[in-house]
């Protein structure tokens, strides 16, 4: 073909493309990732899982033909950088409808900004537990259990081990936590349990990033508590387990939570962490679920996976990333069903979808998440769709689920959510919405 013909042909194709109705539209999906910095070992698998899930959706043709335009913004778990990411990404590529910051600090900063920009925040499993109250936090959605539920399940599990929560009377429990917002967010629930069941709760703060915990664990050795509740993040976790070993505190009496219950949290202390318990947000390290196989076949078999090491697919935090991606994708789907299929959704439509979000067991099965998450349903007032979580235990090689589903105790959790949400509303002069139900 002569050059001129090529040119003409190209022009013709281009003209045809512009003329064709409904060029495949894209839904912008920003991903906040921290692959560098102090929390990189935790941030990498989460970001990989999130990106992989969205890629999987794209590989299967998108949502009613709408594919995700995936973009990562690296913020190194630094709040100021996270805000810059948010400001940069919110208006790009047709605008972000849903933001998941995966950081309690960035979430705190966005609590006010996002509603102004009409962007929905999903905060699945971190940050601001009070946001479960939809009357105050119209634009914020914990969806799956928050830290209050984590604390509650930790207590229930401790109670079970003690042979009933009332057996805790007079017992000594230590709470070792990172001196950061999330460490403090667990306290109201523990305090409530301590008051109700009459055990002494001794709180030991560890300064971030938590590499030096010598004095904390010396105190643990002195107190010899009956149980130890543990809330840390990043490098603090393996360090705590090493220190526990060094002072000879039995690991099977340690109860952690989901950000302290992944493979990287026991790295280097695999042997010594045997018996350590952690609340799992989902089936940890699930390699048999359908969605994992899907990811392996669709992406990794073709070399399109995000993770450098395909072996990490199915790790605790990777699965956690899949859930993050799934929540975004499902929100888009639900919103499209209401507002028109085959079109990218806006932040307001996402808000509606998240408030009318329902995952039935059948839908979970379809998505391939059976055994990973529980059914959930949100309403206008109730932004936390599920109160269920399980306990997992480290057996020296991998994380094993060793309990049935616990249901967070609403008698303890709901009043706290209400109390803190109302305080937030009063402090910030937010008018509470009236919800029909």
């Amino acid at each position, binding site marked *: 073909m002569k050059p001129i013909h090529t040119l003409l042909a190209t022009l013709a194709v281009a003209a045809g493309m512009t003329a064709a109705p409904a060029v495949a539209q894209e839904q912008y999906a920003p991903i906040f990732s921290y692959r560098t910095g*102090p929390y990189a*070992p935790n941030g990498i698998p989460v970001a990989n899982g999130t990106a992989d899930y969205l890629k999987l959706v794209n590989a299967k043709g998108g949502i009613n033909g709408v594919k995700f335009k995936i973009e990562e913004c690296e913020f190194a778990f630094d709040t100021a950088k996270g805000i810059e990411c948010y400001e940069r990404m919110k208006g790009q590529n047709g605008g972000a409808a849903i933001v998941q910051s995966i950081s309690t600090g960035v979430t705190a900063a966005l609590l006010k900004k996002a509603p102004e920009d009409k962007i929905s925040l999903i905060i699945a499993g971190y940050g601001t537990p009070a946001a479960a109250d939809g009357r105050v936090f119209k634009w914020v959605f914990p969806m799956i259990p928050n830290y209050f539920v984590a604390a509650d399940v930790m207590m229930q599990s401790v109670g079970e081990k003690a042979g009933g929560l009332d057996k805790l009377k007079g017992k000594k429990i230590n709470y070792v936590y990172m001196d950061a917002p999330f460490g403090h967010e667990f306290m109201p629930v523990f305090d409530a349990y301590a008051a109700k069941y009459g055990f002494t709760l001794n709180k030991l703060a560890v300064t971030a990033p938590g590499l030096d915990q010598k*004095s904390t664990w*010396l105190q643990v050795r*002195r107190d010899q508590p009956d149980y130890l509740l543990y809330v840390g993040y*990043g*490098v603090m976790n393996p*360090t705590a387990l090493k220190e526990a070993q060094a*002072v000879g505190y039995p690991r099977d009496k340690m109860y952690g939570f989901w950000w302290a219950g992944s493979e*990287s949290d026991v790295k280097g202390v695999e042997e010594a962490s045997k018996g350590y318990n952690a609340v799992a947000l989902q089936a940890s390290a699930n390699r048999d679920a359908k969605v994992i196989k899907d990811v392996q076949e669709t992406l990794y078999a073709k070399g399109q996976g995000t993770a450098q090491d395909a072996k990490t697919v199915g790790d605790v935090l990777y699965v956690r990333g899949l859930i993050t991606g799934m929540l975004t994708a499902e929100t888009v789907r639900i919103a499209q069903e209401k507002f028109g299929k085959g079109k990218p959704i806006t932040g307001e439509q996402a808000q509606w979808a998240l408030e009318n979000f329902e995952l039935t067991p059948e839908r979970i099965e379809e998505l391939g998440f059976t055994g990973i998450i529980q059914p959930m349903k949100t309403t206008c007032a109730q932004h936390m769709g599920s109160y269920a979580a399980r306990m997992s235990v480290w057996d020296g090689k991998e994380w094993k689920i060793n309990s049935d589903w616990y249901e967070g105790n609403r008698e303890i959790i709901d009043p706290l959510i209400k109390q803190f949400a109302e305080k937030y509303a009063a402090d910030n002069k937010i008018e509470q919405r009236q919800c029909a139900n």
Partner: protein
Amino acid sequence: MGFFLETLIGGLMTGVLYSLVALGFVLIYKASSVFNFAQGVMVLFAALAMARFSEWIPQWTGIESKVLANVLAFMVAAVLMLILAWLVERLALRHLVSQPEATLLMATIGIGFFLEGFGQSVFGSNVYNIDIGMPKDPLFVAQGLFEGGILIDSQELVAALIATLLVAALVLFFQKTSTGRALRAVADDHQAAQSVGIPLARMWVIVWFVAGLSALVAGMVWGSKLGVQFSISTLALRALPVVILGGLTSVPGAIVAGLIVGAGEKLSEIYLGPFVGGGIEVWFAYVLALLVLLVRPQGLFGEKIIDRV
């Protein structure tokens, strides 16, 4: 009483490691008046290099002996620190002679940024392990004297021993070798040293290398205890009160102050902490140093500051 001793011993052993990092600061400051804020990142970089090479060398060469792999990795890391020292002198320090202290401080922070990025992009930003076979289970001594005995963290005990050995070696190096003597001369007076024919540039390379070695040992010891990861660089901040408490220019000062700060912060956290909610040890170490400075502004062992007008 048993618990008090336990805390004290634990604190002293942590203190030895602080001394090790503090030494890096002091050596460089003595020789070149540079307050090396990048010391913490050097610890990270050295530890990363050692961790990754001890993993890679068996893969590349098929060496099976763990000890040999570790020794080789240590040597490779040491060579890297030497190259780093040379580059720092060649590319940065040489051009910054006689700048104010704040500018030099800033330059080392810049070097720190570079190393942080470089180290992580070459070696990765995950958690890596250094396994030099340190014992991990606790040791109980004096069980006859106190109920339950006194717990000693065996890992820290080994770490403290390694650190002590290195410190002793450094002291010997400074007192007994001609290079050591030359370094002390440079520390005393740059111009005088230069005028008797001591090559200043080479001395700087040597001193940065020695500081790099102490960073490597600190990184190895800490890394085998905590795992090697980004955050390890922040441990150096814990050594800063040690440096000023002992005096910026004093090697014995760094050692003694390390022990004081190590023991002081643990004791304060455990005995004072509960009254104010805990978590005080980080700033308490600084306050401790500050109190001493109010009496002796040059630190415990620093050279007396004489102002001439």
